[in-house]
């Protein structure tokens, strides 16, 4: 990989999908396309400009990327072919790796919990996931989704049963993940 003389840009570029950061011409198409740009403290194109200015701490502490919906509209519109959505994911990944926990948004917590179930159980038990997420973050918020959960229960759409892999499948998944852990990330 070619070094840019900017350690943060190199760090982002080393993540698959992050290398496009070097190509940005600051046209703002991503920002104009983003359904959540108005909710972000820094727009997608600003995040790129900040990263290229070496503002590592500010970028990773920002909660802007956590508003990314992964709708990929920016990605299909970028005139430079940057995988903008993947770039946002790369920033999320670095932010989590760094242990930066942005205040005010619960998305990193939710993502971590989701990943916990995906890795340990091999699937996402929706009822358990929702319950645990609300208990872990703010049980008081849970009352808001009680009507939603009740409606889903009534329609047979929330199951107490958790899907499990076979014993062999579980062992195989564990062995794969254990090995992956020893390989030090992407």
């Amino acid at each position, binding site marked *: 990989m070619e070094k840019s003389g900017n350690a943060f840009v190199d760090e982002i570029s080393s993540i698959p999908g992050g290398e496009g950061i070097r190509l940005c011409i600051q046209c703002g198409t991503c920002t104009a396309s983003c359904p959540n740009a108005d909710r972000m403290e820094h727009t997608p194109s600003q995040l790129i400009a900040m990263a290229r200015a070496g503002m590592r701490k500010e970028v990773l502490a920002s909660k802007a990327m956590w508003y990314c919906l992964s709708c990929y509209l920016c990605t299909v519109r970028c005139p430079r072919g940057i995988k903008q959505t993947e770039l946002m994911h790369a920033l999320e990944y670095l932010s989590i790796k760094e242990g930066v926990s942005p205040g005010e948004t619960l998305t990193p917590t939710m993502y971590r919990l989701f990943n916990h179930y995906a890795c340990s159980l091999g*699937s996402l038990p929706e009822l358990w996931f929702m319950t645990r997420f609300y208990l872990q973050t703010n049980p008081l918020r849970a009352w808001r989704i009680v009507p939603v959960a009740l409606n889903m229960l009534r329609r047979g759409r929330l199951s107490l049963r958790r899907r499990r892999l076979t014993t062999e499948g579980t062992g195989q998944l564990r062995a794969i993940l254990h090995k992956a852990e020893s390989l030090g990330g992407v």
Partner: protein
Amino acid sequence: MKYYTYFPGCSCSTEGGAKAYSWSVQAVSKVLDSELVELDDWNCCGSTPSSSVDELAAFCISARDLALAEKRGFDLVTPCSACYVIFNRTNHYLKQYPRLKTKVDEALGAGGLEYHGTVRVRHVLDVLVNDIGYDAIAAKAKKNLNGLKVAPYYGCQVVRPKPSFDDPEYPQSLDKLIVSLGGEAVPFPLKSRCCGGSLIFTEEAVALDLVRRLLDSAQKNGAECLATVCPLCQTNLDAYQGEVNKMFQTNFHLPVLFFTQLIGIALGLDEKDLGLKTCVVPADKVLAKYR
């Protein structure tokens, strides 16, 4: 008979909130001479949240499913747009980034698996309209949808990011399918805009506002219901419709059907087999006119 490997994903599994989507997919494919056999012992697709938390683990989880599917040798078909986007991403990345592939191969090896990158990952919508075809589906229809006004809702990940089987911003396949069954696909400018995804848990107000825009556009264009191709979109639009009404003092009452449920109705299938009762906003009234 056409053969496929079926990947329901967590939402559309027997334990998932969108299991009715799988029911209707299976019921419809039977009539259409296709066999979708569920992948044995599959795990989560790798998921967008996981790739932000532990990217390598996410690729490895995803590759395990692909390796298992490769052994069967058929196209891997999923009804979930989120699984669809992740598997295609894994396939694409393993080809584009050799260093990543080396690591994923090593991890898979620890589980006694290998993956050669040959599995074609498809969405159910793609299979139905392109392998089976509009005419073949319409030929098997027992009921005409009789001008039922449907807003065709694609959401994001079935058409983006890769150039897929339809246009990334203004897709047409679902529109054509509805029309071929005798329904009316109402103009729906937001047809490929986001439903809020998993931010419904963490940024409720933000996600509900996105849902509101979709419902509003569908209603203003005269839709009597929406047809969706993704379990997450369906859940956000259907199960959270009441919350949208509370938050924005609106009065939406739009049933949100899986597109395969709509096909099933046209094929004259038993409504129980299609799981219509799992819709939070009841579809009975709208569909009564067309029975």
